[in-house]
């Protein structure tokens, strides 16, 4: 039965943990709060160590908290991160997304910095500052950086944050046996989508939307083991989706993956969503990494990486590239469908729209179509934000109705 206006805004008859107020996807104030309370406090993947293979290599990263960073491998081979902001006049220090430079020299006034963040040259220093200010006063702002969990470079803006291992906890235990060897990024592209970043994470978290994917229906949902895949929540909002055997040859024109992944069962697929916006997706022959940089409540940049083994032969690498792009490239079968979905959500729930509730209410014994992953995520979101996802403005309408 269709609903009246009053019925439309009534809270769903589900436990409050099983739905959210859709304004958490559209509110500018909440978004700014997310940047401060979540993104500037949690570990986040900036790039992969293979993107900084040599001494003096650098890589830029637009941190989701809002600050631009530059990641640098020093002459001691250590990876460090700094604000990509000149301490002199606030110019971008590095313009290119990647490169190699022994010194980072600001193009504006030629102040120069080494790979440890020390200022090593202030042009006409004595003439201008007469010992009132010197190179020792002009170091770069360093950001906590660790390399781990498959060789990814993690950063945390908060100097007082817990170690990366503590933040991840046991969440990567299912995947760690498969990502201990040197890995290499072979694919990178971005998508800018008019939607909220949490909606993309939701899509990576719930597999109920496999109804949208013909490829996943025939190779997964219609195959034995699909409905046995377990979802497991871990501390700090992380979620694991367990493996099954994908039957790739069930899709016309596709065939069983010729190149597997060391130790992973043939056709295997392990997916781990990490709070607040990263996903490890090891699917048979390719590790895909999604990481998001939200630009506003209704705009997000999603970075996609395809990762193979550093030891790949040219033939193995070519097959991984093919496998990756068949479903996940910009012309791939699945990625376009996923992006269509969250694009449609962004369009329907944009500010001013009378969207009200988003349901996370499916319970199927914590298996693949159970929406436990999203519930787990929003519990952590609420804890960090000091707000309830189902009642973000403490209007108490939900508790009154429940």
């Amino acid at each position, binding site marked *: 039965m269709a609903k009246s206006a009053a019925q439309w805004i009534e809270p769903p008859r589900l436990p409050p943990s099983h739905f959210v107020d859709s304004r958490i996807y559209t509110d500018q104030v909440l978004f700014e709060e997310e940047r401060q309370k979540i993104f500037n406090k949690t570990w986040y993947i900036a790039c992969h160590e293979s993107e900084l293979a040599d001494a003096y290599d650098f890589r830029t990263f637009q941190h989701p908290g809002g600050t631009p960073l530059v990641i640098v491998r020093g002459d001691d081979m250590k990876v460090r991160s700094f604000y990509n902001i000149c301490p002199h006049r606030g110019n971008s220090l590095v313009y290119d997304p*990647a490169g190699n430079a022994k010194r980072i020299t600001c193009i504006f006034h030629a102040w120069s910095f080494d790979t440890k963040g020390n200022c090593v040259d202030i042009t006409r220093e004595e003439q201008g500052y007469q010992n009132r200010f010197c190179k020792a006063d002009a170091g770069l702002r360093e950001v906590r950086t660790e390399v781990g969990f498959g060789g990814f470079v993690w950063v945390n803006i908060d100097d007082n944050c817990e170690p990366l291992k503590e933040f991840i906890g046991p969440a990567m235990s299912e995947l760690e046996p498969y990502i201990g060897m040197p890995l290499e990024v*072979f694919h990178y592209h971005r*998508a800018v989508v008019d939607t909220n970043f949490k909606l993309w994470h939701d899509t990576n978290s719930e597999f109920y939307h496999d109804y*949208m994917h*013909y490829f996943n229906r025939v190779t997964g949902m219609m195959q034995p083991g699909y409905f046995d895949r377990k979802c497991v929540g871990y501390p700090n909002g992380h979620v694991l989706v367990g493996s099954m055997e994908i039957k790739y040859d069930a899709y*016309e024109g596709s065939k069983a993956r010729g190149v597997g992944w060391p130790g992973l069962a043939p056709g295997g697929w392990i997916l781990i969503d990490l709070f607040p916006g990263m996903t490890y997706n090891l699917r048979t022959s390719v590790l895909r990494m999604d990481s998001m940089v939200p630009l506003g409540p209704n705009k997000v940049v999603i970075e996609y990486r395809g990762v193979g083994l550093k030891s790949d032969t040219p033939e193995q690498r070519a097959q991984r590239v093919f496998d990756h792009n068949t479903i996940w490239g910009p012309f791939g*079968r699945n990625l*376009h469908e996923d992006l269509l979905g969250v694009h449609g959500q962004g369009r329907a729930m944009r500010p001013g729209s009378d969207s009200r509730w988003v349901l996370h209410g499916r319970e199927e014994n914590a298996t693949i179509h159970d929406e436990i992953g999203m519930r787990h995520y929003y519990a952590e979101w609420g804890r960090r934000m000091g707000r309830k996802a189902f009642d973000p403005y403490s209007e108490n309408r939900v508790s009154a109705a429940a």
Partner: protein
Amino acid sequence: MDRAEIEELVYRSCLLLDDRDFKGYLDLCDDEFRYTITAHSPEIRKDLIWLDHDKKGMQTLLEQLPRHNSDHSPLTRHATVYKIDVDQTKNEANVVSALQVFKTDLDGGATALFAVGKYLDTVKLDDGRPKLARRVVKLDTRMLGIGFHIPF
């Protein structure tokens, strides 16, 4: 072979794909046809291959489209043939064309530039009719929003 016939092959390939006449498009292609979309990523400093199929692979990919959820916005491919180098010994021509792809929203009809790049074609000149033997779509544009299911 007349240069105009080679140019017309490139232009017809655009028109047929614009019209989603995939059979007509594949009829322009030699049996040994191979189609590849490439780009270069300055971020990871690597060349990328986003799509790579032989003629049968292209046919399957295009025939599967109705089973998938896709953006149905029409594309308009605008090619300009810049250079044709005929190799008489191989009886083929290497053709370089500039490519612009525009996307028009179904709802409202706004048109925006979707991608730019080049067609790098190898055209077989046997049998009195030019045929596409190899097409590399070398994209400069790497930000394709939500992506697209139909190749350029």
